[in-house]
């Protein structure tokens, strides 16, 4: 039972950090209050997901969307969170897109100056061609021979 109770929890270090950041210096929060806050955030997560699950099932979807979460927050009268969260999502998306493009660029930029990509590409192509040829050699000879024999015998 103890392990189950521990599972429904968040690390206190994170909770402490958030509390510290949102309060002016010098304020003390009792241990009991911190524990209660941790449990409250756990319940908040559980409740918001269950509410948004309802919205998702109403729309006959099985996966939780961002829109479901926003609707749930509206339902919980926490509209004030929504604009900030939307901003966060957009910045996250754009940063991801930047990451992807930058990683692609970096790959190209790493390869271009040395002229390596062309060589490596050629090598790859050559290898593939060799493989194809070898495959052809192995596959064609017996097949053609057998087929030829069969054909010649039949016709």
């Amino acid at each position, binding site marked *: 039972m103890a392990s189950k109770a521990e*599972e*429904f929890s*968040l*690390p206190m270090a*994170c*909770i402490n*950090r*958030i*509390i510290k*950041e*949102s*309060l*002016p210096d*010098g*304020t*003390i*929060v*009792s241990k*009991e*209050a911190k524990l*209660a*806050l941790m*449990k*409250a*955030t*756990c*319940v*908040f*997560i*559980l*409740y*918001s*997901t*269950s509410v*948004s*699950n309802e919205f*998702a*099932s109403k729309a006959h*979807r*099985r*996966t*939780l*969307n*961002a829109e*479901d*979460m*926003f609707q749930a*927050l509206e339902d*919980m*009268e*926490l509209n*004030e*969170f929504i604009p*900030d*969260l939307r901003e*966060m*999502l957009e910045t*996250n998306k754009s*940063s991801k897109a930047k*990451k992807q493009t930058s990683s692609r660029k970096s790959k190209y930029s790493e390869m271009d100056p040395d002229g390596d990509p062309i060589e490596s590409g050629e090598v790859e192509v050559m290898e593939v061609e060799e493989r194809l040829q070898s495959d052809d050699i192995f596959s064609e000879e017996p097949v053609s021979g057998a087929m030829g024999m069969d054909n010649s015998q039949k016709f």
Partner: protein
Amino acid sequence: MASSNQGTTDKNTNLPISKVKFLMKSAPNPGAISNEALLIATHSAEMFLEKIITEVYEKSDKSKSKKITYQDLARSINENEVYEFLGDIAPLKVNAIEAKEIYARSQETPEQTD
């Protein structure tokens, strides 16, 4: 707040995403959870925590003590209708004598409460 963490893209959230995901999956009728929903849940949980603690601080500031006690938290949670869903998470502390009185009252009028 988040400005200190803006440089590191993966550590934008203070709460561990894996824990939040576990909590979300243990909610009733768990389905699949999109990454966006997960991000929103973690961030909103953070904002929720900040909101509660700042409210409690503002309320407790009027009394001169600088310490936020459990009783301050429970009072502000029970006063605000937005936190109705927290229900029995943070009940107000009651003396044993008062608890006895409340229990006796509830025993006297069980039909009315129902």
